[in-house]
């Protein structure tokens, strides 16, 4: 279906979310922080990014900011344990299409991915 770049410093989350995304028939590539993710966005050209916020080296907010700065238009969804309103607002302001709270539920993730990809297709047409 789609090539999704999953960005999370937790190997537990990378394993579980990869399994969930694969069950939805998506191809999954992973990165453990924003810095590695930026390299993979440029090298692999994913259809969508699913990123955590709190990560070492480069956090999710810095990653979203860097995507903007570099003019990279890959749609992104944030999945974070940080439930603060300000964090959500900052991520959405930086262009995230959705902000999901961990633990992420399958149907919620599926809907967010579907909507993000639909918008992305419309924007390209």
């Amino acid at each position, binding site marked *: 279906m789609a090539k999704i770049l999953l960005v999370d410093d937790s190997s*537990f989350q990378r394993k579980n979310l990869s399994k969930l995304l694969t069950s939805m028939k998506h191809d999954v590539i992973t990165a453990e922080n924003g810095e590695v993710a930026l390299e993979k966005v440029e090298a692999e050209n994913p259809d969508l990014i699913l990123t955590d916020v*709190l990560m070492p080296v480069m956090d999710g907010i810095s990653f979203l900011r860097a995507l903007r700065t570099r003019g990279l238009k890959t749609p992104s969804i944030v999945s974070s*344990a*940080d*439930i*603060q309103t300000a964090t959500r607002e900052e991520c959405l302001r930086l262009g995230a299409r959705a902000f999901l709270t*961990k633990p992420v539920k399958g149907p919620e993730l599926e809907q967010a991915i579907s909507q993000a990809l639909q918008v992305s297709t419309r924007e390209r047409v």
Partner: protein
Amino acid sequence: MLTNLQATTLTEIIDTGVGRAGSILGQLVGSQVKLHIPSVGLADLTELHECLSLADTSDLAAVRQNFSGSLNGRALLLFPKSSGDSLARQLIGDGSDITSMDAERQETLTELGNILLNSVLGSLSNLLTLRFDYDVPVYAEACLSDLLETEAVDPDESDDPSRVLYANAHFDIEAFRVTGNVLIVFGIASFDQLLTQVDQVSLQTAES
């Protein structure tokens, strides 16, 4: 000093966050989580273990997350090691010997701590209109005093760095014989800011 109203309001606010965390934990392990009413108070770091309902504070598994921003402090998810093993086994979800997968066990508990501690702190942040910046959570196995450390929780605190405001919530998952605590420790320098916001909430509650 904490007034009765401030203690009550803060307890209710922490209870909201702990309730949310307990609900998430219950979903993750597929079992009911029994939550106890949180306790809130002032203590010296060296005496804090007396305020917690932990039978044995000498051999704990913990996820520790420092925070800064509106308030400085430290949040901990604490278990006896046997409870940590039991929880990790439930979350990883296979019959493997959990102690032989040390890295996976630690990663799993770290992420659990990330979710639960953020749930409590985030609820506090949203209810009190505060803003926290979080350090990456860290897993550790140690006695309680080592986990708390005797250094100042608040780096800006110069007077009595060992005195803290704590909020503690105990929980049980009977089906898996898991017992644990969520403990939040605020530096004294964060007091005024925290209590000002708590007073605001009390006032809004009284007016509504």
